[in-house]
């Protein structure tokens, strides 16, 4: 990166040898050679000999001459370029200051020895602390504390909703009464005033609750983080005395203990999961070397992966798994489609409890907006330039269909990362989208990002729709599912070559209301697209 790639030059290698009848008449040979020469000169000599029918007794001489020629020319090539540079420097034709600054920057930003001494960032310290604690006997307490905090938030939210409802009810009542008196006792003017007063009241109440919630989240976050750090110190002090009674399993409350000991599958699902349609497969991908992946097709609302109900005791096992792997390299993610992220339902799930690790969803979205604005608008401008005017000029949003924004969460049910795939709902309703559709290309980016960021388990809407609508007939679903599955197959194979984590588990979600027959037909589609791994059969000896 510090050497400019100069265009290679072509030099002519000249060689002559006497003709057989007359010593003074020479055969002249001229071969253009690219400098610097990338191949072997001896091979070039062989080609020359063959092509021009050069007598073989000249082979050794040619070998030597050509090798010398190339060595000499290569040296000259470098030296001349360098000499030019140095002369420019001597004559002050170069921007020395710029060059030196550039080097300074390179050294400072990329090499440890010259970089500014920075301590470990706060978030990493906290991450390490948390990761250590959730893998210690303190896990149970942490979960309990988080759960009780979540309950407080939930209660507050409930109070807020009740309060607002009460206000709305009383306002409605008042309004109705006034309306009855319209043209009798009061004027339209008065009604309008009332409306604006009501609106003001609403805003005030919502604002009050908003700030209460904010304050609550703030205190909870501060308290929780402080408590975690102090717990870590205690844990360090007492870590010498690890007795069996201290072991995680011993101290778990029955619910959590059961969750750990019992069969994990049914418990790791949302309570709503009872009786939902799903089917799992283990598949092999790759033509020679096979990689194993688990895929599951399931009829569910993807937001069930995000929602947590603090009052439900079985939820703690879901949270347990999510907390344990939060700072590991086995993250799980979900792809949510929306026209303008975040979708309100996700926002509700994310604010259902306090976010202790990352910024809250609002702030994350704001940061994303800020940072995405410039590159996205550059891109949009470039796109507008290349497209005929008037086409697609309507949308003024910075994010376009196919763009993906990612948010991180520690307080959702099963996922750590949410990929918000921006889509154009209208075009996705159409039955014939191709593999070049923005949503599909966005999916490709999602899978690649997942691989290179250690997201090993990902859930995505198989039909690229979260809900059923009337045009989604059986045939429509089959066609869409086939397209998505085939594309995903290609993307997973491609992403595997990028040298990141393996996408171990893929969940394909169908709208929960899907017809059982359609589900069954889509489930049978899977084994025709992916190679299902053979079950290992053990044969009894003898």
């Amino acid at each position: 990166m510090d050497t400019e790639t100069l265009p290679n030059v072509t030099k002519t290698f000249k060689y002559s040898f006497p003709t057989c009848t007359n010593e003074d008449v020479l055969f002249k040979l001229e071969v253009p050679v690219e400098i610097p020469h990338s191949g072997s000169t001896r091979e070039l000599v062989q080609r020359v000999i063959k092509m021009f029918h050069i007598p073989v007794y000249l082979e050794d001489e040619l070998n030597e001459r050509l090798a010398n020629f190339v060595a000499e020319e290569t040296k000259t090539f470098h030296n001349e370029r360098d000499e030019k540079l140095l002369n420019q420097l001597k004559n002050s034709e170069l921007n020395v200051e710029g060059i030196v600054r550039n080097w300074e920057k390179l050294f400072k930003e990329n090499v440890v020895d010259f970089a500014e001494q920075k301590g470990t960032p706060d978030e990493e310290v906290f991450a390490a602390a948390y990761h250590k604690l959730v893998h210690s006997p303190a896990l149970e307490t942490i979960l309990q504390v988080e759960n009780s905090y979540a309950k407080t938030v939930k209660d507050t939210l409930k109070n807020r909703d009740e309060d607002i409802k009460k206000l709305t009810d009383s306002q409605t009542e008042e309004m109705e009464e006034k309306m009855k008196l319209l043209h009798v006792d009061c004027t339209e003017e008065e009604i309008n005033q009332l409306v604006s007063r009501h609106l003001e009241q609403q805003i005030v109440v919502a604002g009050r609750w908003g700030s209460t919630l904010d304050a609550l989240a703030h205190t909870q976050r501060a308290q929780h983080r402080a408590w975690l750090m102090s717990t870590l110190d205690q844990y360090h002090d007492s870590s010498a005395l690890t007795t069996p009674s201290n072991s995680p399993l011993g101290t778990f409350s029955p619910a959590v203990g059961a969750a750990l000991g019992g069969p994990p599958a049914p418990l790791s699902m949302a309570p709503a999961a009872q009786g939902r349609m799903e089917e799992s497969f283990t598949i092999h991908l790759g033509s020679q070397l096979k990689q194993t992946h688990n895929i599951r097709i399931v009829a569910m609302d993807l937001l069930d992966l995000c929602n947590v109900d603090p009052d439900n005791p079985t939820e703690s096992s879901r949270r347990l798994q999510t907390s344990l792997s939060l700072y590991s390299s086995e993250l799980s993610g979900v792809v949510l489609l929306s026209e303008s992220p975040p979708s309100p339902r996700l926002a509700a799930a994310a604010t259902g409890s306090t976010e202790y690790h990352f910024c809250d969803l609002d702030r994350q979205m704001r940061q994303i907006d800020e940072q995405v604005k410039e590159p996205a608008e550059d891109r949009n401008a470039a796109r507008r330039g290349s497209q005929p005017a008037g086409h697609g000029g309507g949308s003024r949003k910075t994010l376009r269909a196919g763009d993906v924004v990612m948010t991180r969460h520690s307080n959702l049910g099963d996922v750590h990362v949410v990929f918000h795939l921006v889509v154009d709902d209208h075009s996705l309703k159409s039955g014939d989208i191709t593999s070049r559709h923005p949503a599909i290309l966005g999916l490709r980016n999602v899978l690649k990002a997942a691989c290179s960021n250690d997201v090993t388990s990902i859930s995505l809407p198989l039909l690229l729709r979260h809900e059923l609508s009337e045009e989604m007939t059986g045939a429509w679903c089959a066609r869409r599912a086939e397209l998505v599955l085939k594309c995903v197959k290609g993307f997973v194979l491609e992403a595997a070559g990028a040298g990141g984590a393996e996408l171990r588990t893929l969940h394909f979600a169908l709208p929960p209301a899907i017809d059982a027959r359609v589900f069954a037909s889509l489930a049978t589609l899977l084994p025709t697209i992916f190679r299902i791994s053979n079950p290992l059969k053990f044969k009894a000896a003898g």
Partner: protein
Amino acid sequence: MYQDNEDDYKFAACTYFAKNHPGETCGSNGLPLTPSSITILGLAQRLLTIEHPNLCTYLDIIRGKHERIIVVAEVVGKSLSDFKSKFTINEVVNIAHQVADALKFLHEQGITHRTLSDDNILVDGEGRVKLFNYGLYYMTGGGNEVSFPLGLPKYLSPETILNGGGPAADVWTFGIILLELCIGKLWQNLKPGPILRRILTLVHANNPAERMAREHDCYDAYKQLPENLRLVIEKCLKIYPRERATFSEIVDDLSQINTSEMAEVKQPRGLMGCKLQYLYHWWQLAGGDIQAELKKNGLIKNSPPILSMPIAILLDGCTIGGKTGALFDCRIAKYSLGLLKSRLSHISAHDYYPLMHERRKQYDAVSLPKIIRERDTEYQFYRLLWFQRLLHGYPYTAPYIRAEAEIDIPPLVRGDVWAALLGVVGDIEEQYERIDKETPTPTDRQIDVDIPRCHQYCWLLCGSAGHRTLKRLLKAWLLMNPQYVYWQGLDSLTAPFLYLNFCNEARAFACLSAFVPKFLHNFFLKDNSMVIKEYLAKFWQMTAFHEPELASHLHEINFVPELFAIPWFLTMFSHVFPLHKIVHLWDALLVEGPSLPLFMGVGILRQLRDTLLESGFNECILLFSDLPEIDIGECVKESIDMCRSSPRSISYRRFTNEARTKEPMDMVEIPMEMLFAEICPRISLSDFFSLICQDKSCVIDIRSNLLYEKSCIEGSINVPYSGVHLGQHELRALGLNPQRVLKEAMKVKKTIVVASAEDETAQLFSDYLVKCSVPRVCIFHGGISAVQTHLPSLFTTPAPPNKNGNK
């Protein structure tokens, strides 16, 4: 437990990240761009082969997760920067002489060092010098594949700072280091910026060396240096690269100044005397973990991935936010061989020097599966030393190598052993050099399409270095075999040889050239239909011979080998399996010879047997379109068993490059149409004779009982063809005695030979037996009459009790 000893630190690792490709990730050919780490891996392979007394041998280049590269190389002593005391002039000259020697060698190889510094010049206790990690510039494609700047500011030459710089930049750096050795460190406590500015101002100096000495208040010290040494320094520190001396001149100069004689070091014996590559290999097998030590030294830091998640990805792949590349840390982690030493401590001294004609010891590990043996430290220790010995004596030791390869081949020397098994000898480099691999040919297009699809999961083969070499190999082979054309699959066939001889193209080519005539004679003809048809027919016969039930099922559903087995044999399975399985398959192939692949095919079918038996035509097609996992160890074992237990003549093919036999006793050749019609193979008279002698055959004479009673082969049973109901697929239908005899024969795995007067009845009856699931059925070539002519002594008149039993 073992104790770490300073001398045990034999190798070290350093690590860095390759550059990430920004934005759009498709190359001009529409395929994803090769990740930088793959390119580095491919370039670095050449470094692994470089050996020079003053260079630290590269041992391994590892590609980690997320574009991490780990370089493992030899280390000795400590680096110049770690020496606190000053060197005497004699020592300085000695060190400089060796460094210049190393650099001269590198420049001859076309490798520019660029990163030479006092950190990577290692000096051991005896004053021996080795350069460490001299290939960073080379393996990163001149720094193009990494995002950090190469080299240290104070060692950069002026033209390098100006973004130029060729090999002559190394001369400058060498001059600076030499100057530092003489007058002390330069520009200490200065930041990169000021250092670079100072270097650039040197261009105005007439004598940069003197100027630097003056700047550091060392002018007097500098002037006191011997004049010839000063001259060398000044020759190096010329501003214009053209004026600088080359390393061969410097070496000459220094060798005149250098008076110190290197003490002859006695080659260490025992473990430390083994090749470093072997030590590294054993150390890994003994549980050595490169990454663990790097982590311990803080050279691999794992920040939780969720913290470095990007925040958005635009449709065109432009990623916003997220990971900021880790900084380049030039520190190294050293590894101790203590672990390996203690693991091998009980091995007696003379086991390090095995004698060729000594009786070989048997190791317990031999009975374990091959994959486990390949991971067994001690077993690999013995095997490697033994193979090293044998390979040293090649080609005279060829028979020994073959015998040992039959047991197993140590993975580390597999390339050498394969070449030996294929009989590669002579000046292969020169032969290969003479072939024109560059001139475009009409097949280039197809080759270009196929190569990026050939074993691309293998990191070596998927890089540009791999692609280029594979193309050269294919072109060379096509040019040398004008009778052949490029059939898709040739690329897969070449891949294993390239994989094992990545830095030895000539040997890969020689192996391929020896392999094809032996195993795939005439397979790559423009019209290869007859060759392939014969091969498949033979394969089908072998299936019937060893797996009659499966064969008749597949016959029934009309699932013929043309539908699935052509790529198997055309590529000798290299298109079907991943490389790590192919090598085990081919290990056996190369030892056992050209008839083994037929049985390997049967071995694969046998593993799928249960599934196939319950599948119809469509399921079978689906199953083979993407072959399920096959246990290769098992498949190889069984196919060797089958191959060895089958009479040689039954797998006879006419399209081989072996000389045709004229001996009527060995003949089994029949017209092709007949071959395609026959389900059971034919056995030659001589094979039959040897089976009879070992009592491993059971002859069924299907002539009429009149003829049989007149004279018959001794021990044969008579089942008159006219009395057989071909529709009834049950042995019972043949009668009590034949059933008993056949059952008995099947139990002891005798070969069932059908003898008849006419070919047609023999064929129909043998088909019938296969349908009855009788294994090991074959037909007499030439029928009874041939036996009567050539082996009359076998004939007798049937004994009366037999006759009674039949009646």
